[in-house]
């Protein structure tokens, strides 16, 4: 492959290969090595989590949110995923010439509200304006810093056989709401992005001394993509229970029409918690008391290291099958395959 493809940035096999071959090899150091959502930096007595992310979403306004709150929530959740309590965020704006001030103000107001909700401070930033045609209205980069209490021990090496997987609500909402507005798909629905900061969920679990072994927010690549990565890194097989995975009727319907599995769709307000089996029921109870965790469910479990890190699905018929690492973005994948057997394209037979 001699050129960058869109798939290199979309959370699948190509992106992983790119990070391994072009990034990890060049910048080799123990902090980067683990490729967690945030790097965990430590000095004598403190652990600091540090993360950065760029937001290039199109459209910049979508049902349920906009690029501004996405930029804050995404970074907050990347800090939460390593067990940190987020405190500081930087905000870099790359604005295309011609963006209406009204739009920019709306975005900045959302940044403010999200930061308040997440109890983080915007402490530094940067603004650049590029010529018309050299950007896509606005790109945002946010970096974040959070602190990890001494007694928190979260990481691939903490995952153990028997751990149960909990998700804090229905999946696929963000990915489908972006797709619907990007492609102008006319549907009557109340579908909205789930973008939200999830530090409250983590705080409650921590306060209640729930033994959480790992966390990950299933953004690009969706639940299927990130769990494949976790299975590979930890070496454990993971089984998802098809019947337990929460999916709204709207997402189910769109998934049928567009031929895209909700498991592959990005989420912006979901976290998958790997919790010690004995604590799992209690964890669900605690999460369900939080606004963003009302529909929490146990959706899977960690199995022995039989196949060295394979993700499987226990189907409704009780049979298990593989859930493979996605190749690229599901929307591109849909062009590849899924639409071929769906009525909209008339391609099936």
């Amino acid at each position, binding site marked *: 492959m001699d*050129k960058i*493809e869109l798939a290199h940035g979309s959370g699948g*096999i190509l992106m992983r290969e790119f990070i391994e071959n072009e990034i990890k090899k060049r910048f080799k150091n123990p902090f980067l090595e683990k490729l967690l959502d945030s790097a965990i930096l430590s000095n004598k007595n403190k652990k600091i989590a540090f993360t950065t992310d760029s937001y290039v979403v199109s459209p910049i306004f979508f049902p349920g949110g906009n690029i501004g709150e996405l930029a804050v929530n995404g970074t907050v959740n990347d800090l939460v995923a390593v067990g940190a309590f987020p405190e500081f965020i930087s905000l870099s704006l790359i604005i295309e010439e011609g963006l209406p001030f009204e739009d920019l103000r709306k975005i900045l107001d959302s940044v403010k509200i999200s930061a308040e909700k997440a109890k983080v401070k915007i402490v530094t930033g940067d603004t650049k304006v590029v010529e018309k045609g050299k950007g896509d209205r606005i790109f945002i980069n946010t970096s974040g810093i959070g602190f990890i209490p001494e007694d928190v021990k979260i990481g691939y090496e903490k995952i153990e056989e028997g751990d149960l997987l909990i998700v804090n609500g229905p999946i696929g909402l963000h990915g489908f709401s972006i797709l619907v507005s990007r492609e102008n798909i006319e549907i009557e629905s109340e579908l909205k992005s789930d973008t939200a900061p999830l530090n409250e969920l983590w705080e409650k679990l921590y306060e209640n001394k729930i033994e959480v072994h790992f966390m990950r927010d299933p953004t690009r690549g969706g639940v299927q993509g990130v769990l494949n990565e976790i299975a590979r890194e930890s070496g454990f097989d993971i089984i998802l229970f098809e019947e337990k995975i929460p999916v709204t*009727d709207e997402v*189910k*319907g769109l998934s*049928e029409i567009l031929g895209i599995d909700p498991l592959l769709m990005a989420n912006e307000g979901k976290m998958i918690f790997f919790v010690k089996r004995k604590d799992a029921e209690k964890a669900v109870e605690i999460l369900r008391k939080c606004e963003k965790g009302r529909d929490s469910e146990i959706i899977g479990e960690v199995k022995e290291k039989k*196949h060295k890190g*394979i993700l499987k699905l226990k*189907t*409704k*018929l*009780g*049979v*298990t*099958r*593989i859930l*493979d690492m996605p*190749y690229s973005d599901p929307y591109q994948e*849909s*062009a*590849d*395959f*899924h*639409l*071929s*057997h769906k009525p*909209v*394209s*008339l*391609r*099936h*037979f």
Partner: protein
Amino acid sequence: MKYLSEFREASKTKLFIEKTKSIAREKWTIMEVCGSQTHSILSSGIDELLPPNITLVHGPGCPVCVTPKEIIDTAILLSKKKDTILFTYGDMLRVPGSKESLFKAKGDGAKIKMVYSPFEVIEFAKNNQEKKCVFLGIGFETTTPSHASVILKARELNLKNFFVLLSQFRVPPALEAILKDPFNKIQGFLAPGHVCTVMGIEEYIPISEKYKVPIVVTGFESVDLAEGIFMLIQMLERSENAVKIQYKRSCKPEGNLKAKEIMKKVFKIGPQKWRGIGLIPDSGWILREEFREFDALNLLKEKIEEIEETKEGCIAALILQGKKKPFECSLFGKDCTPLNPLGAPMVSSEGACAAYYKYKKIAD
């Protein structure tokens, strides 16, 4: 959703599997012809619940997989011509030709657009008369009527800049090709529900009689497939050769008369090359003389070379004819993967090899 979930209900699916278990005494080998059926069987796990005396084998019914490389090569050549734009369905983009895929060609600047319907091409051609618009359409009898309609529409609008590059397959000759083979092991077919919704069952009756095989026209959801398998095993156990319809909610015995009329107006039966298998007589739909002006090949002076379809060691032809299963191939999952497909059944995710790779990959 309610309409669909009814046909995916686990309890109903299990019930038909239990009924099948209770009647299946002999050893039976049956083929689901369509790639979507293979996909549905493997993703729900029906194959693992059936008793060991029933073997399911996978048929040649994935149109993306069986489209010859020459068609892709021709499409790429056209898309690189001055003032010519190629339009196609999204699932064709990654299918490799002899050197590259449409996706790769697009990345290098070829003019290729994805459409959901051929009528989008008509709209574009109407508004961009200076461009030559070529529609690359493939498929079985489900897509052929819409391809015929779009050509009729182009004629009605007197469009001189609209062309088609088509590769259209017929199912019955493929079934006959499989049955004629003396080493064939297939005793019954789950016929593709969508194709029969268009074509009806009249073409299947003589095949069932001549080769003494039962055929059940089956849908695509787990309940459909479990019921279709039950109906087929029931006929096999009773030595009954007939064509029955499981997919009654969509398929009528006579098919869709209007669709058949439209396609016959524009196309006639002709030879068709199948990737991985070769040329099968009468297995395609080709343009009638009076519509040849729409043939995209008119735009080409170059001759497209015939290509040997199967790589050394690849058993694609045997898999497409139900003689071998993907795990029996030494290249499966090693040299041959969906990212680097060597044979037709790995080319599209609906192919049998790709479905095994996606859902099974590792034998437990």
